[in-house]
């Protein structure tokens, strides 16, 4: 009988020890969800050492502030081979469209909205080829071509300023450097073409036979 009691006591002790050790006492579980954690821990965010500077160093970037968000975007003018345009476009467009002069830009096909909505001079300033122009006729600097796009594509523009549309350059860290519209989209044909996937997994096919 004595032995039985001894055994029962032992079992109880064992059970208590197991129960105590099996509870999770981690610091990890102090937040209900990861969004709570983000909110709480970012309250005293003081910035970090990691920076994008080494990666964007040497790139021609300049700062823009849109929707009260400031970030860097690449310049455009220095990427265009024959800028300034006025080196050829010495005269207003109407005067250059004669049969005497050799045809230029014949290879550009506009595939952007439809012909009723857009033609070359919707965006290009026929009086000053170095600049772009808005719908209302204001001049837009070629480096800030996003201002042209944002006239119609307001939603994309807003997402782009926040960072939901488009890509960051090289680094996730600050200072933020983002690509601008024309780094991904060809303004004359902004849609993406179909293409073949970069990879095909032959092992997966075998596995699922």
């Amino acid at each position: 009988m004595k032995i039985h009691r001894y055994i029962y006591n032992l079992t109880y002790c064992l059970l208590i020890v197991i129960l105590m050790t099996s509870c999770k006492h981690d610091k990890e579980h102090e937040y209900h969800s990861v969004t709570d954690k983000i909110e709480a821990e970012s309250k005293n965010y003081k910035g970090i050492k990691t920076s994008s500077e080494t990666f964007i160093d040497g790139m021609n970037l300049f700062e823009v502030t849109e929707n009260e968000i400031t970030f860097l975007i690449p310049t455009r003018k220095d990427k265009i081979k024959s800028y300034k345009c006025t080196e050829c476009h010495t005269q207003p467009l109407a005067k250059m469209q004669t049969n005497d002069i050799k045809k230029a830009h014949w290879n550009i096909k506009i595939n952007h909205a439809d012909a009723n909505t857009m033609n070359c001079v919707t965006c290009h300033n026929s009086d000053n080829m170095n600049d772009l122009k808005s719908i209302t006729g204001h001049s837009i600097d070629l480096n800030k071509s996003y201002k042209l796009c944002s006239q119609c594509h307001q939603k994309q523009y807003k997402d782009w300023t926040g960072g939901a549309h488009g890509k960051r350059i090289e680094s996730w860290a600050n200072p933020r450097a983002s690509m601008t519209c024309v780094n991904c989209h060809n303004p004359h044909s902004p849609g993406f073409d179909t293409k073949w996937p970069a990879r095909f997994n032959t092992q997966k096919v075998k596995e699922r036979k």
Partner: protein
Amino acid sequence: MKTLKVFGSLIKDSLDTITKGSKTYHLWMGFLTLIMLIGMYCYSIQLDQGLSVTGMTDRVSWGLYISNFTFLVGVAAAAVMLVMPTYVLKDIDFKQAVLIGEGLAVAALIMCLAFVVADMGGPSVLWHMLPGIGVFNFPNSMLTWDVIALNGYLFINISIPLYILFRHYQGKESKKSVYLPGALISVFWAVGIHLVTAFLYQGLQARPFWNNALLGPRFLASAFAAGPALIILVLAIIRGFTDFKIEDKTIKKIALVVTVAAQVNIIMLVSELFKEFYAPTHHSESAYYLFFGLDGKTALLPWIWTAISMNVLATVILTFHKLRNNLNVLYFACILLFVAIWIEKGFGLIVPGFIPGPYGKIAEYTPTGIEIGVTLGIWAMGALIFTVLARTAIGIETGKLRYKK
């Protein structure tokens, strides 16, 4: 000092016993050794080339090894069904059977550990799991619970019979005060190992097929059916080949245990099937795959329906007293039940857990020859260990093996 000397003599005597025997015995041992060697060869190939020689893939990442492991944990746990009545409830009928049952548990546990090791990608770094030298992720990982549970159970199941046999070897009675606490703990422990093994699967929210509350109890029920069924078969064989006395009464009592457990198991199966198929959700797809196939993939269909019909047939046979009391019919039912539960609790449980995958992809699993070779090798090892243990135990119990002063 004296104890050590007696122990040495016990080992010598037991070695003497297990190396001598009839022609059938030698054939049996030779056969097991051969299978083990084949298994070892297969394992060496697996070590050399990696687990890619098995049928497992990223999709079905556990296969035959873990299936057998799961099943054998059940077999090991079942030894308790004999321990409890014998030592605790003082039912003397079971006294002879209990040593056999515990021997079976030891063999099954060693097989379990062997299956786990065979399943490891890096067996040479298994020391990482040793507490102290390595890192033991206790209590977070259920696998560490299982390691503790299995090794603890192995220790209990080795030490109790060893003590009893050791006393008997010296011609003394074993002291109750020594083995009773161990026996009592082992009762809880046996339930524990099987529940913990069930929790291993049950605790994975990623696998809805396993993540249900009934898994643990079902594990227990099926284990207490399959384990004692195997013990009945083993006792029958021992009765036939040795002069170890086992009464019909004992076997019939164990049969009653098997019957009740098999009935409970069937009830739980029905409950599970009802839940999966009456109100099928997205989570029922694994069950659909298991019982009816999914997207034309039907590899498990023949297996599971064989298992179910064998299971039902065996349970029906066992339920009728007249049939159950006929020993030959009982043995037949036990074989049916054992095989049925091996399928059901083996790859019938493990493989569908992975199918369909987290994103609905189906890649079927077929074990390769090498995998089957290793598996057979481990089973042969288990049989060999059991034979060795049983022969020694029987030798001592029948009085043939005694310490000579």
